[in-house]
């Protein structure tokens, strides 16, 4: 192991687009950092703010929520509700002084393996300089 800080990112991926997109990245053997721990949910609309707070609370250095592009939602409109909810959560976290880079949302379709790879690369690149997330982390 290098002593370089390796952020731990929890990624909530919707089953139909983003998770499929990450599968495509795999099938196409696109390499990206291993810092992301994917949790596949049915729809980005099912990601409760509690999941996000809890992930930070349990020590995540970053949290990603990724869903289908507007209009592409397998469930027609789940991602629109997600978009609203996540916007509020993001504003709130920034308001209490959490680095905005630590919480991000992306649209990744089943065909966008490349984009998924890019999103992860950027995410890791952006939060490495921030160091570990200790603000909301439960100190055990």
């Amino acid at each position, binding site marked *: 192991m290098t002593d370089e800080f390796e952020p731990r990112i929890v990624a909530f991926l919707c089953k139909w687009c983003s998770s499929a997109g990450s599968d495509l990245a795999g099938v196409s053997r696109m*390499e990206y950092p291993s810092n992301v721990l994917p949790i596949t949910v049915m729809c980005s609309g099912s990601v409760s703010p509690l999941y996000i707070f809890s992930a930070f609370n*349990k020590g995540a250095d970053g949290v990603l929520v990724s869903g289908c592009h507007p*209009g592409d*939602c397998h469930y027609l409109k789940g991602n629109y509700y997600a978009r609203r*909810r996540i916007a509020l959560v993001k504003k709130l976290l920034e308001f209490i002084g959490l680095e905005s880079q630590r919480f991000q949302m992306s649209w990744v379709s089943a065909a966008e393996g490349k984009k998924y790879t890019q999103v992860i690369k950027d995410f890791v690149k952006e939060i490495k300089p921030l160091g570990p997330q200790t603000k909301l982390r439960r100190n055990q």
Partner: protein
Amino acid sequence: MKKRTGVFVCHCGINIAGTVDVKKVTEELSKHPGVVHSEDYVYMCSDPGQNLIIDAIKEKNLDKVIVACCSPTLHETTFRNTIKSAGLNTFQCEIANIREQCSWVHKDMEKATEKAIKISKSTVERVLRNESLDPISIPVTRRALVIGGGIAGIQSALDLANSDFEVVLVERSPSIGGHMIQLSETFPTLDCSQCILTPKMVEVSKHPNIKLMTFSEVQDISGYIGNFKVKILKKPTYVDSNKCTLCDECTKVCPVVVPNEFDLGLTGRRAIYIPFPQAIPATYTLDINSCPGLLPIACGKCADVCEPNAIDFDMKPEIIEEEIGAIIVASGYDQYDKELMAEYGYGKYPDVLDGLQFERLLSASGPTMGKILRPSDHKEPKEVVFIQCVGSRDPELHCEYCSKICCMYTAKHAMLYKHHVHDGQAYIFYIDIRSGGKGYEEFVQRAVEEDGVLYLRGKVSKVFEDKGKLKVWGIDTLIGKDIEIDADMVVLAMATRPSNGAEELARKLKIALDKDGFLAEAHPKLRPVESVTSGMFLAGAAQAPKDIPEAVAQASGAAAKAISILCQERLYHAPTVANVNINLCTGCGMCVDVCPYDALSLKNGKAEVNEVLCEGCGTCSATCLRAAIQVKNITPLQVHEMINACLGG
């Protein structure tokens, strides 16, 4: 009761084992609470691999299983059936995706292994809390609805009907036939479009299993796969088709003339009309929008001359309700709006035509009886310029996509033009020529070699009138020279776009559209004829631009898919649906608001789930402030524990 989970780690040859230390994963997982068995094997999905699982379940009497292997989209079903054969409920198996989401995307063995362990642990945490569930069984109404009476709809309807299922075929215009019936001859064989289509149309009208509803529109759809309830609006034609003898007396007396849709305005028609001679059903329709008026009857001449009293001004719109098991959507296409193509003078100059208008000119039954004459002065055009990709492949200004059929029909147009006007010259401006398809490339070559069609690679910048000629400014990118042609006629291969009203229809059906407004298929490769809503299928150009053979093929595919539903006694629906804790529910109704499937409702102050409608998306559970609703087997508790496991907790 203590949980007994078995963990099975797949090498997938070196696909996984190449970058993930499978042995370490196996060993680490064996220490995880709730895990009583952990082993690895080179190919878990192989028969011996599956047998390992079955044996372990029996020997260690496991009640839960995770398989760490490839994406669940591939082998989840395989392994769920495996444990089923060993007597476990299928939902007691979960897949940890350590290939697509791990071994294939990482190089560093140590890190990849660490990640694979976390993914597997979190999957264990999930399966530990999985309920055993049985599929929800629902009855099937063994009738199909086909929306759209074009070639695709006709094909689907006939396939279904001939397999002995009742079909309701809904067409919004007065006759079936769609765009194909407007065409002259079809590439690459140049057989007459009407000659090959009309037999099918007649078969539809005569078929005992087909209930044909023309001049009708789907108004509302409720229910779910196997059990749709469809409201169809039957617009009044004011003509009783049973009485009408097609004597055509009415049109002679009708004082109104309006552009004829069938000829795309190249000819006129009366307010009372039959779209075209071979129309099915063979009857007249009174177009209320152009008729002087019925309330009060302003004219009534048609009725006066109608011998059989077929005309009934009191005809009212009807709402007809049908019970349906499966739906095929074949709503077809329309041409790109000419208003958006001002630079080519379409709509401004009478001799700038679109593809379909030119088809009519070519058609023996067309306005000119198959002669190529300029609409403006009925002279024979000697120089005709065909422009491809009008509105297509133009992400900046128009449609990003390729309309696919234009290359071929333009070649056909040019060829047929030459067959009519031997001393004429046809020019074709193109970007690329896409002639993939059986006999297509040969067809294009024929146009060039035998009929001397002049292909110019490049785009036309402007078309304008100049001394009675249509000046066409373009550029030939091959020789890099500007080109100016004085044409007698210009034919635009307009982009193909979803038919008017497709969006509204999609909303009614609750099926998704793609970014271009075509109906979205469930999977671009593996489920090309299914919509995202189960029980609804796609056929023809409604899903993407298609030529006739493709449309017919997809139509038959959709029919087959529909049959696979209709032929069953009962259907089974995934039981991973939302579930309400009525002790916590306060009946605020937020879940009802967000449910995309109207699966939720309030029953005496508490939310209630219609398990058959619910697709388990979980948006309700994220919305609920009281944590009173959650989706089975992906509950907040499970996610909470997965987060924990992912973060080494």
